[in-house]
């Protein structure tokens, strides 16, 4: 089959580009020669908009960045502002934040695994993942009334307390998640077709991964044990006992596996946080008009997709001078070409799925 090289446009509207990503592919029959991602189809001008809003008003907009993990975005931004303003968050609020952030990681990974499997053709997994995810979203809905763009973390603490009924509910839900995970793993873990399509596909070595700035589960699948929660603990993460799942092959299968393993760790953290939930205030005293002293700060957290950073510069007023977001998907997507080159066209969608990108935070 000697075909001459053809250019193939994947997206911005394509079933498996996870939104409005466009990939300019050069293929020789089925073999991929080049991949050039074109982004910006969802660029909403967030950073410009933030400069015209107060520090408090920015928080709900961060929900719309990585819309699969709204609470993690909240947390990243809020921690940066608190660090800059010198606000000390009560311990109970920190624990509630950990509970919310880890539940969000569960929801995000469930969706990520589902989408990835759906791209490779196992559509039931997506629906199993979403079924389990719905249970987690129920918690958010009960906590603050929203499902997706929750705005559940505020500057200084959290808006609502976890009462006994909600704690009991969270416990039932996280007890049920391993059963859902078992369903998914039965379908995928040892499936010959799944392994054939994922093992040894889209490999990126540890050196290249670090050089490309890859972060999060995708990096840990390449054997680099970099997890901000362990390295530079924030929000009391140092008080919990958890492992950082690590795989060494750096292929699609390992990226899938790391995500699945991380879900068990998240459940572990949530359990510990609920067990040790301290009494006390759920929010520090924050003035109604929050004026942040001049200065600049760059704060990172471990979001479900990878290292999420917020750079905040203040000029002493109630509006930020500049907020810059370092989004994990943006960095991770850069390595796509490295992973795809020489693979088959069918693998591009699988590799893209395994990177777990969200266009909302790539395009901002």
């Amino acid at each position, binding site marked *: 089959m000697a075909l001459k090289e053809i250019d193939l446009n994947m997206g911005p509207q394509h079933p498996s580009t996870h939104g*409005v990503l466009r990939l300019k592919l050069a293929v020789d029959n089925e073999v991929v020669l080049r991949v050039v991602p074109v982004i910006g189809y969802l660029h909403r001008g967030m950073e410009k908009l933030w400069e015209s809003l107060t520090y408090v008003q920015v928080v709900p907009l961060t929900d719309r960045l990585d819309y699969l993990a709204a609470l993690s975005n909240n947390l990243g931004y809020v921690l940066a502002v608190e660090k800059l303003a010198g606000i000390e968050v009560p311990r109970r609020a920190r624990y509630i934040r950990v509970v919310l952030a880890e539940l969000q990681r569960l929801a995000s990974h469930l969706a990520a695994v589902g989408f990835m499997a759906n791209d490779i053709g196992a559509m039931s997994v997506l629906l199993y993942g*979403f079924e389990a995810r719905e249970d987690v979203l129920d918690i958010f809905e009960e906590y603050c009334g929203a499902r997706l763009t929750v705005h559940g973390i505020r500057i200084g603490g959290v808006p609502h307390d976890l009462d006994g009924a909600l704690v009991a509910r969270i416990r039932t839900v996280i007890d049920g998640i391993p059963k859902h995970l078992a369903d998914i793993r039965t379908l995928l873990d040892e499936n010959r077709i799944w392994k054939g399509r994922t093992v040894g596909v889209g490999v990126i070595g540890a050196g290249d991964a670090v050089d490309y700035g890859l972060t999060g589960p995708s990096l840990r699948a390449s054997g680099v044990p970099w997890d901000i929660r362990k390295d530079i603990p924030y929000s009391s993460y140092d008080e919990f006992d958890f492992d950082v799942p690590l795989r060494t092959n750096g292929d699609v299968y390992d990226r899938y596996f790391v995500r699945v393993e991380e879900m068990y760790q998240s459940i572990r953290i949530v359990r510990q946080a609920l067990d040790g939930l301290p009494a006390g205030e759920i929010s520090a005293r924050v003035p109604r008009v929050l004026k942040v002293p001049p200065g600049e700060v760059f704060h990172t957290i471990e979001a479900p997709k990878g290292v999420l950073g917020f750079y905040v510069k203040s000029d002493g007023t109630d509006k930020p001078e500049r907020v810059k977001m370092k989004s994990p998907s943006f960095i991770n997507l850069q390595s796509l070409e490295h992973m795809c080159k020489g693979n088959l066209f069918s693998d591009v969608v699988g590799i893209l799925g395994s990177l777990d990108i969200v266009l909302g935070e790539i395009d901002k």
Partner: protein
Amino acid sequence: MTESLEKAPFLLARADAFITWAQKNSLWPFGSGLACCAIEMIATAAARFDIARFGMELFRASPRQADLFIVAGTVTNKMAPVIRRLWEQMPDPKWALAMGNCAIGGGPFPTYSVLQGVDKIIPVDVYVAGCPPTPQGLIHGLMTLQEKIARSHPTKEILDPDARHNR
């Protein structure tokens, strides 16, 4: 509605009822997700809410086979020509549903890069407010669209193709 129905011959009215019955019960959405709302759209198709009950689970990847364009998310100026083109690629009769505040009117983004409402480029039949709308909200929008289709007169459009553009 009643006026035109009285004028229409009985057979045409029956044909209308039959065709609209088929159309409203077989709305195949175009699988196009733009932003946050797309996730809620997928959740609507997933286990808890399941729009398959209405025969709408066949999300078509190709616009040629879709009936309903759910504009789920923020439409940017860069994406707008693509949306317009996809809409034109869809065969008549077709419907559009603006899901979420961004698609309705730009939502929380009054910025340089966001199109302030998808109805500036394509005709929208149903608007579903929310940021994002819950799956229940989307299903309500879809049922509203079903009612709208039930009131339409497809035979008129078949007999007089110009009427389609005045719909």
